[in-house]
């Protein structure tokens, strides 16, 4: 059964201090060619029946993302592509 994946990212104009902190740590790993890092959240949703992208969009808009500061995308993936399928 395909799984719905929702990716939530801060809008580009919103400062991402977590991403900045990670970017600032990279030189300590010897990494000097990264211009910026932004951190978001990936949410995997399994419906009891057929996956419903419209329902997933509604869930994302009402709860998973705050549209004031975040954008989201909704997509279907086969379950063997998702992290949960590789314990």
């Amino acid at each position, binding site marked *: 059964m395909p799984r719905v994946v929702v990716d939530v990212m*801060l809008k580009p104009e*919103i400062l991402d*201090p977590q991403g900045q902190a990670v970017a600032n740590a990279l030189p300590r790993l010897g990494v000097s060619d990264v211009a910026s890092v932004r951190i978001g959240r990936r949410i995997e949703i399994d419906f009891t029946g057929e996956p419903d992208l419209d329902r997933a969009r509604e869930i994302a808009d009402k*709860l998973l993302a705050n549209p*004031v*500061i975040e954008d989201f995308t909704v997509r279907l993936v086969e379950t063997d592509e998702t992290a949960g399928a590789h314990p």
Partner: protein
Amino acid sequence: MTARVGVVTFPGSLDDGDAARAVRIAGAEPVRLWHGDPDLRGVDAVVLPGGFSYGDYLRCGAIARFAPVMETLVDAARGGLPVLGICNGFQILCEAHLLPGALTRNQHLHFRNRDQVLRIEAAGTAWTNAFQAGQEILIPVKNGEGCYVADAATLDQLEAEGRVVARYVGGNPNGSQRDIAAITNPAGNVVGIMPHPEHAVEALTGPSLDGLGFFTSVLKHLVGAPA
């Protein structure tokens, strides 16, 4: 008759006890409300206290917004019920779209805990009428996600309509845009504030008694409000 001011407890609320005490010291009767119960018990005003409701999972205030008590509270607030959201309560009011904008991770990523000077900018709201516009007060601030953000049009509108209630003075503790510490809705009955007036109501524990003004304001507002 003594005004009855509700204080909501969510799982993870921390400052509900202090908020109830502040209500009592101001001369009103605190009424404890429960997140899972939509009944507001006929209160005249409501405080949403600080803390980490529902563990602040997902985003601060995001899950609390859907608590049964919030369904009735949102309608009542739209109908004019005075509501004060402190810290996590401010986050909940933004998530519930009673106030514009959002509160995000402090710009410097550090939790900030200190006594903070604020300038009261709007003394006409239900929760700030005991102050003078321009008055400086000292109350504790303690937050990890207190950085107020909104788009430029929203910020301009808040400024133009006199809805910035308080600003940080002497250093912005969290990177909030335009030093905003507190805002109100167009009607002035809903106020969200990031610092903690309920921790500055007694000489023994607070840096001042300046916080008491928020709670005496709502009593003054209720006396003047049409029944």
